[in-house]
């Protein structure tokens, strides 16, 4: 394989207009959490910008690193399709539909925030959101390794940020290296 070919494999040469249009479509269909399925159909099956293996790698990175998963996934796929510029275009196109809708909702909120019923109904919706958040927490917890240290780290972070209201930055700055270090010792020890 020539250098030119391998360079193309890293970054790709898809037209930016195609990248923009594809991710605008994916972003617009983001109702119901089927983003990953839509993304796979578009970038792997239809456009063939990435193969399955690269898609899964992008999926793992998107979940592990900070940032919204669908946005991170769009960035990774845009990068594979058309390098750095593709990444910028993909992320922008991906966010536009949801951004427009949430701005309309924010505008409507301004108009109706004087009515007590607005806050009452939104209180109900917030309760749904809290329930969903707790369910996500429970689901992720159930996949954690069953050991005391893992439990203690999760509990300590919850108590520090949630109960004692400590600032998140220093808590995470201490907890993340500590937790990864312990996991590293565990992974090395298991070998």
């Amino acid at each position, binding site marked *: 394989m020539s250098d030119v070919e391998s360079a193309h494999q890293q970054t790709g040469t898809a037209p930016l207009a195609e990248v923009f249009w594809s991710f605008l479509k994916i972003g617009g269909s983001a109702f119901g959490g089927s983003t990953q399925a839509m993304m796979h159909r578009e970038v792997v099956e239809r456009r063939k910008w990435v193969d399955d293996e690269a898609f899964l790698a992008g999926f793992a990175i998107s979940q*592990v690193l900070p940032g919204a998963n669908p946005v991170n996934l769009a960035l990774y796929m845009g990068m594979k399709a058309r390098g750095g510029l593709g990444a910028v275009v993909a992320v922008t196109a991906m966010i536009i539909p949801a951004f427009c809708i949430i701005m309309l909702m924010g505008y409507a909120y301004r108009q109706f925030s004087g009515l007590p019923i607005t806050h009452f109904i939104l209180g109900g919706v917030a309760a749904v959101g809290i329930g969903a958040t*707790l369910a996500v927490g429970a689901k992720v917890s159930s996949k954690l390794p069953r050991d005391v240290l893992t439990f203690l780290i999760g509990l300590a*972070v919850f108590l520090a*940020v949630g109960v004692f209201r400590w*600032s998140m930055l220093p808590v995470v700055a201490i907890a993340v290296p500590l937790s990864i270090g312990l*996991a590293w010792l*565990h992974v090395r020890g298991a070998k």
Partner: protein
Amino acid sequence: MDNRLLGLFLVFAPLSLLSFGGGQAIVADIQYQTVELRGYLTNQEFSDMFAISRAAPGPSTLIAALIGYHVAGLVGALVACFAIYVPSSLLVYGVSNWWQRNKVSPLKTAIERGLAPVAVGLIFAGALAVIRAAKVGPLEIGTILLCCALFYFTKVSPYLVVLSAAAAFAAAYFIA
């Protein structure tokens, strides 16, 4: 006005790098900084914004854009959006190449294993922050428990649940 734009940037840009698993992990600190530290919102407004961001399609991190809009209009929304997405995106961009070169490394396993409990702790802290900010009565507690069970055990569409809850609360408002 300019101070508020800078303030929005300073709230959301660092949180961008802490948003493990998305917006749910940083909800607690968003509430603390925008309500208690800077006084941009009341607890009522924060709870409403949380609700709207959950009812809207797209990533829950867009609560940043919503707060930005409320604090400083459309420019505020754009600044907050920029702040919440650019730092994490730069990190993802930088890490992507390294990640692909090292297909199965013990360090990757350690990073995945190590981040998970921290993210779990932050998610529960976020739920607690919203419970504190919202006015939670028996009706809301019932809704929280019901929805938690629904989302844990079934694959029901979140939008269907949000719509049903909004309709049920609207009905309850007129009955009570």
